[in-house]
């Protein structure tokens, strides 16, 4: 890798972000790494992973299609795998940075910290995206939302290349007017009301802004994170009083899915139930959250260019 010293940071930033958008990202930006360092918990800061990182680039890809919001949750759970598209773009962007600018870059692993267990990620991609100005925290457990693109999946790139950070978003789209109205009437926004484990609660101030967001992540995890079930099922099976009970525990359809996931299966069971996003007016009804509308916008723009 040939190191280049005559890099124009502004031009480089444009090249990288354009690459991300061209490859399918809906939004991309640069987060202030110093801010991340101050906010992220110890052990999960960029410097804990790579002390030489100077910039964090964050990008977001579209989430669900309009049709997806109308299918049962047990099937929608599998749509978490669409985040792979974001990772692919980030992976390519890291190569682009190294090839084009001669600066080291990594695609930030979105996985869990193997020392901390499966509920703790290496890095908060959400924090990166928020500080990069491509999403704002919602009442739905801090899931990031975008006023144009709604609900997205995010990926990050760390690089030694110094890039000018973007500011966080000026406005937070959450809560919308309709959510505020429902909250005023019932004390709950749609995401709170329809959460199947009631893990969301909070408050909205007089101006219609978020006053408090409470997220019981452990309860949320009970819906989908079946890794906790595997040892539980095995422990119960060991303690089973008889063969009939043991057979029930180990071989009922639901538990057999666990073994299936451990052996040949993948996807699903690792995401969320999506109910909070399914009912969120920003997540799926923002102007460009709808892929059909996005296509129309793009076509119109291309028409203008022509």
């Amino acid at each position: 890798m040939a190191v280049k010293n005559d890099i124009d940071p502004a031009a480089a930033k444009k090249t990288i972000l354009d690459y991300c958008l061209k490859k399918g990202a809906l939004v991309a930006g640069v987060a202030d790494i110093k801010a991340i360092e101050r906010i992220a918990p110890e052990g999960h800061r960029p410097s804990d992973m790579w002390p030489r990182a100077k910039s964090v680039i964050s990008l977001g890809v579209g989430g669900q299609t309009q049709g997806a919001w109308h299918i049962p949750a047990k099937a929608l759970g599998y749509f978490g795998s669409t985040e792979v598209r974001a990772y692919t773009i980030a992976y390519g962007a890291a190569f682009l940075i190294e090839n084009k600018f001669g600066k080291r870059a990594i695609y930030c692993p979105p996985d869990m910290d193997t020392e901390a267990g499966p509920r703790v990620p290496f890095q908060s991609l959400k924090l990166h995206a928020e500080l990069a100005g491509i999403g704002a925290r919602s009442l739905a457990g801090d899931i990031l939302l975008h006023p144009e693109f709604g609900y997205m999946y995010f990926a990050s790139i760390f690089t030694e290349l110094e890039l000018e950070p973007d500011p966080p978003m000026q406005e937070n789209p959450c809560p919308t007017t309709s959510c505020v109205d429902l909250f005023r009437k019932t004390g709950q926004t749609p995401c709170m009301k329809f959460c199947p484990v009631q893990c969301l609660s909070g408050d909205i101030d007089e101006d219609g802004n978020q006053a408090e967001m409470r997220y019981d992540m452990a309860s949320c995890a009970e819906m989908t994170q079946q890794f906790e079930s595997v040892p539980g099922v095995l422990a119960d099976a060991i303690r089973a009083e008889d063969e009939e009970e043991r057979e029930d525990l180990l071989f009922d359809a639901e538990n057999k899915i666990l073994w299936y996931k451990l052996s040949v299966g993948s996807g699903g069971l690792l995401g969320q139930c999506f109910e909070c996003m399914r009912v969120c007016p920003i997540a799926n009804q923002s102007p460009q959250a709808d892929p059909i509308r996005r296509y129309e916008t793009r076509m119109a723009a291309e028409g203008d260019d022509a």
Partner: protein
Amino acid sequence: MTRGLKRSQVGMSEEMIQTYGDTIFDLSHNLQIRRGDPVRELNWEEIEKQKEAAGISDVEIARKLGLTHDQVTYIRTIMERRRFNRHNYHRLYDLGGGKRFRTERFVPHPERFTFRPEAIALRKALDFDPRSASKYLKLGHWNGDTVSSWLDKWADKTPDAIAVRGPDGILTYAEQRDSARRLANSLLDIGIQKGDVVAIQLPNLAAFTTAYFGVLMMGGVLSTMHMPYRAGEMKPLLEHACARAIICADAAENYDAPATMLALRDEVTTLEHVIVATGDAPDNALSLRSLIEDGTSHAIENAPVASDPAILCFTSGTSSAPKAVVHSYQTMLANNRIAAPIYGLTADDVVLGGPPFTHAFGLCVLNFTLMAGATSLLMPAFSPPGLIDLIENGKPTVVFVAPAHVAACMKSGHLDSGDLSSIRIATISGSACPPDVAYALEKAMPNGAVGQMWGMTECFMGLHTPFDGPADIRCETLGGTTPTFEARMVLENGDIAPDGEEGELEIRGCSVIAGYFNNADANRTAFTGDGWFKTGDLACRDANGSVQITGRAKDLINRGGIKINPVDIEAVIDRHAAVLMSAIAPIPDDVLGERACVYVELQPDNSLTLEEICSWLEENDIAKMKWPEKLEIVARMPLTPTRKIIKGALKPT
């Protein structure tokens, strides 16, 4: 374990988990609280202030609590496991695709579908030979039909057609379903669960059909109690069935059913509810009418399926120890489907069933009628003039009766004087039918044909005559085996009897039960290992395949080694002018082992001696060795609900 270390290696104890567990869990990301929007606004003061509320890392928690990083990770992950509720995953199944979570409507899955241990135990009676079950399923003899699905079919297709016409009301199919649904929902509301047994002691009324459909609709198992039964007979049956509720009639002059049932409720541990179907319910009892009126009419969520138990009947046979017969929808309804072509029932038919619904024969008739979408014409109690009057006014097209019904009408003269022109087919069943009885009925029906059917609670219909066959086949035999059934006569030595020779009738088919509920002794003697049911009836088959029942195996009298079958002798005695009905049963004898005793119920204002009986038998060419050697005059013959004589109840003075 963290980093492969045991808890002791990181200096951990259970006490430490207990001490710090909740604090660590709350400080971690497992509970996240944010006030305002400090990160987006880069409000550093608030960010710092809210760090702990947002969830801090293990190393930060360790520093705060004075523990090691490993200890915190260990405790946090242990707490995550201990607090994890696996069953919340099931909520996913109720979401999306048009379904929304509603706190107020949500019932946790483990609480949704529960069966009592008694209900599970009852299912063990449905222990079919897997080869037979596989065959019946493959051939379609067993399918997914339930009584509710048949009722739904007609309530949707012909909602205004009359389903039931009885002295207590007329119900269309739509009304019948609505009242049954309301009752079903009310039963669920009072705590009756799917698989629970609900007993019933009611005559053939519209209230019975509503109870029948309602109980079955919510997945209950209906256990029938015959009308003559009183507390002494019912208590062991209710206990055996583990009945959860009983439906009965209101108090009558000679029988206070509600009071009897309320007293039984104190004695039968499982019995919780007494439901009075007619009239007003006393204190501590429920009113069937109120349950129907108060119930909601929405469809049942966890409706029964075809393999579920549907009814539990106690055999009415002459055995002194009744046996509990559990039929699933598959065994019960298969018989109706298979026999349907024989009867050619249509929705235009009006069906009069003589046998009570508390008997399997009665339920079989009710299901037949339902299957065709026809009308059930109800007869709550039998008397010769009552039956003939009902036929003349109700104009049934199809009639099911027992030989005793017809014989009584013959003796009273009502059979000859009545107008039976509406009847196109009449089936005689319930006990062996003397040919003259069958011929007499056919003669009385200018537009109808008589047929015979043999069945038992354990198998429903197993033999039948075709209605288009010659009169001698229809009136003198039971015809052939019902389609898909197999029948064989077995000799005492276990060999199969050749045509023309008497043997014990054994039957096999898709409506034969797997065994009696909770009666291993009876199962050992009544069932072979390969699906044959030993009926206890003696029969022989002629060269044409027609079967005649010749008696009951256990009714044979062993007089010094000579077996006497009393059936033919009883038939002759019954023809004597002074006799209303007769039965011959053995009495012990020191020399011969057994001798024959004849029990006679006389016609009013008549008398009879043993000598006169023997002369009558001699006149009718009955061999002297078969003559009874003792006579007992009985005031009233003990009868089963299908008017079959209970020989076990006959004792010499």
